[in-house]
């Protein structure tokens, strides 16, 4: 599959500007022009040959490398994603983010699938990702592959507008000891340790432990402490074995216990029509164990088996839920007649959800199964010039039954430095538990008959057993151009045709208003994304990302007002620009700058969801850091985040979190490797 671990390596190649790798020149050796880091990205073995030809995936792929992460000074995975074009990252508070791809922003943003080493971290409770629980030792991340657009053919449901693959390093690459400590303003600190080594000739392993405490921010309303300190504690291991050249396996696991504080606002209790604010503790625990076996069978054939177990538990004033997931996945790749590469797979997932009712949320206990199978064929129509990839995934879930997610992609390389691609794909988001069977208290109001008060009415988001999947048909095209050895461009255009998008239909039920989940929005999302990479000198590099997004959504007039749709389309910025620069000042000194501009968006008034939305100002962020490496083992970083401003509100949570200004952050960090 073109997004497999190895092929995405090749995609990384594209993005780091080594297009020439795929150029077949017979006389001269074109690789002589590349620098070491570029050379180290080229795959040279037979497995790789296939990957190399696929170095340009027929999709909008952006790779955030370990070096990007290190130089950006970010301290969380969610913040790192802001480097990618087409992704909207808005920090809500220290522990909460709205992360979305090509629109549909939100704390419960639900059209983006996220995987860590192949393990889905997309929560089936509300179809979204609890970013506060997605951690690992940042230094152990090999790369983050950000794929915009539908990925349903390979990854299955919920990869409507994108897939994020967070991939950690093989244990053979993390030998030795790493100790890191940092401290910053607002009580921020972090400590981490990792030890890795060879257990035998063929087995390597590592162990890590991290503990962070984020800085707390300030409430928009009165400038007081936002009570949003977040304290993730996590440990984990990874073992990698290569018993023979054609066999490899991985066994890895993590355990975490994340605590912290939050204000829950609005918090509806008792029968009061007024929301209270509640001082609440964050508590998210979990763990996972994943095993993977891959065997090359010769003739470009390979078999991969992957299995994982994941449990996670979250208990706070809003959510009280626990999930157990078992996932089995088998994949087979083979060349077919020299011109075709066939990838096929089958999967099974069992998800058990156990919920306790809170004041805000009710969910029934559930036990669900998911069966899936996919087939994808990549056909080389014209040797080294034109490829066609066709495929589909079939899934059977307990909510909507059968789902098909087909795609067709064409890649054309008209010349050595150009590659053009286009695709059409269908993807679905299957219902979350809450949408079919849950209830979420969203507000209270004093009900009256004429002018006579008659009691208090509840406004609930209410599950609907007939709620169906949301559907996108996406048309995409892109152009990658390696203009010179030091300058490359990656352009992507998309038109998404949405249907059956969720909204809530108000139904009077006594004094209460049940806002029943229905599939009643349709419309489109259109946009342009550009990534450019320029390394004018060996000591100087620039990375630019620009995203433009236009959305139109219409609510079925029989169901409700257009206001909800208008808010959704305005909740994501129309324009976003990110410019990163890295400058080697001297042998041991490096200055990194990151400038981001995010266009104005609308936020929702969480105490009155039916009221007007609020405009949030556009903002510009400057992050800067200086890295000093006095010797190979030691790295010292002084970093500043959001340097241009005291703080700004970047997103207004639909519920749960009061408006929080994300403040300026400064920290110092020492990393010692030996």
């Amino acid at each position, binding site marked *: 599959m073109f997004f497999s671990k*190895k092929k995405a*390596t090749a995609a990384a190649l594209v993005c780091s500007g080594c297009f020439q790798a795929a150029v077949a020149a017979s006389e001269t*050796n074109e690789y002589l022009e590349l620098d070491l880091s570029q050379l180290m990205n*080229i795959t*040279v073995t*037979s497995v790789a040959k296939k990957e190399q030809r696929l170095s340009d995936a027929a999709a909008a792929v952006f790779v955030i490398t370990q070096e990007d992460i290190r130089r950006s000074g970010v301290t969380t995975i969610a913040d790192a994603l802001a480097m990618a074009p087409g992704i909207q990252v808005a920090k809500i508070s220290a522990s909460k983010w709205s992360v979305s791809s090509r629109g549909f922003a939100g704390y419960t943003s639900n059209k983006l699938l996220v995987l860590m080493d192949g393990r889905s971290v997309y929560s089936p409770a509300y179809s979204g990702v609890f970013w506060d629980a997605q951690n690992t030792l940042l230094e152990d991340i090999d790369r983050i592959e950000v794929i915009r657009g539908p990925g349903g053919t390979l990854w299955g449901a919920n990869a409507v507008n994108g897939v994020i693959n967070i991939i950690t390093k093989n244990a053979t690459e993390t030998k030795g000891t790493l100790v890191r400590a940092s401290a910053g303003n607002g009580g921020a600190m972090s400590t981490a340790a990792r030890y890795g080594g060879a257990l035998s000739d063929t087995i390597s392993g590592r162990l890590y432990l991290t503990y962070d405490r984020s800085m707390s921010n300030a409430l928009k309303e009165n400038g007081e402490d936002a009570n949003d300190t977040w304290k993730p504690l996590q440990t984990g291991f990874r073992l990698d074995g290569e018993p023979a050249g054609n066999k490899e396996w991985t066994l890895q696991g993590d355990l975490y216990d994340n605590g912290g504080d939050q204000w829950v606002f609005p918090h509806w209790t008792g029968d009061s029509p007024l929301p209270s604010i509640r001082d609440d503790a964050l508590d998210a625990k979990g763990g996972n164990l994943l095993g993977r076996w891959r065997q090359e*069978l010769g003739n470009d054939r390979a078999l991969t088996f992957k299995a994982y177990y994941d449990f996670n538990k979250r208990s706070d004033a809003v959510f009280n839920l626990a999930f157990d997931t078992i996932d089995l996945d088998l994949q087979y790749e083979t060349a077919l007649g020299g011109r075709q590469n066939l990838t096929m797979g*089958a999967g099974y997932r069992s998800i058990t959800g156990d919920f306790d009712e809170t004041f805000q949320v009710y969910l029934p206990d559930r036990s669900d199964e998911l069966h899936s199978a996919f087939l994808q064929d990549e056909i080389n129509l014209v040797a080294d010039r034109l490829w066609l990839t066709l495929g589909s995934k079939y899934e059977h879930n307990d909510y909507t039954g059968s789902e098909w997610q087909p795609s067709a992609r064409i890649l054309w390389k008209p010349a050595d430095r150009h590659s053009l691609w286009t695709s059409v794909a269908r993807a679905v988001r299957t219902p979350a538990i809450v949408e079919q069977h849950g209830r979420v208290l969203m507000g209270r109001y004093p009900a009256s008959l004429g002018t006579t008060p008659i009691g208090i009415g509840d406004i609930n988001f209410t599950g609907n057993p007939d709620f169906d999947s949301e559907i996108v048909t996406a048309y995409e095209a892109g152009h990658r151009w390696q203009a010179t050895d030091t300058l490359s461009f990656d352009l992507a255009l998309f038109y998404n045709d949405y249907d059956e998008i969720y909204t809530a239909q108000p139904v009077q039920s006594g004094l209460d208003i049940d806002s029943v989940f229905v599939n009643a929005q349709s419309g489109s999302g259109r946009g342009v994304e550009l990534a450019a990479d320029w390394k004018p000198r060996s000591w100087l590099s620039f990375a630019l990302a620009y995203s433009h997004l236009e959305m139109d959504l219409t609510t079925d007039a029989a169901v409700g007002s257009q206001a909800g749709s208008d808010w959704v389309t305005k909740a994501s910025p129309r324009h976003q620009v990110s410019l990163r620069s890295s400058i080697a000042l001297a042998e041991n000194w490096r200055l990194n700058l990151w400038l981001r501009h995010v266009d104005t968006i609308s936020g929702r008034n969480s105490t009155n969801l039916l009221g007007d939305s609020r405009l949030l100002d556009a903002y510009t962020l400057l992050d800067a850091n200086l890295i000093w490496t006095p010797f190979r083992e030691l790295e010292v970083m002084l970093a500043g985040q959001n340097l241009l401003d005291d703080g700004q509100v970047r997103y207004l949570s639909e519920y749960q979190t009061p408006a929080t200004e994300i403040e300026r952050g400064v920290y110092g960090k020492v990393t010692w490797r030996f």
Partner: protein
Amino acid sequence: MHAKPFITALLTALFLFLGTSLSKADSPELEYKVKAAFLLNFAKFTAWPLPAENTPGPFTLCVLGTDPFGQSLDGLAEKQINGNNIEIRRTASSAAIGQCRLVFVSKSEQADLQKVLRLTAGHPIVTVSDMEGFAAAGGTIEFKNKEGRLSFIINNTKARMNGLRFSSSLLTLALEVL
């Protein structure tokens, strides 16, 4: 649930494919093209002791034993190291490597490895090889294939004893520094 028969059929198809087997060779050509480019970069990021660097004349890059590079080394002749042209010498005799600044030791010399290392010990000569365990045995740089990509191990201890200095960027990129 009608998903199951479908998946059973697919799995059956899958295992049928497993039955067929053909073999296709790797591409040694690509591998050594890339390795040739590595050699150039190794040379760029190495500092030889002053007398040698000041000596005018070509930078001698040698291949000892059976040459796996073929034409992919030829392009190096157009490059320069510290302002000196590169001269490529292919030799079968380890006795001749005293003249080299950088020697690629071919796998064909596996049996004579100790002799090669003895001859280069104490001399500012960068030895590079893709023999397993080369760096640990006292060679300067060993190529390693990691998940299909090339990386390298540097024996910095030995290199420093021989008077060689590597730039920190080369050491940082190394998979391992001994």
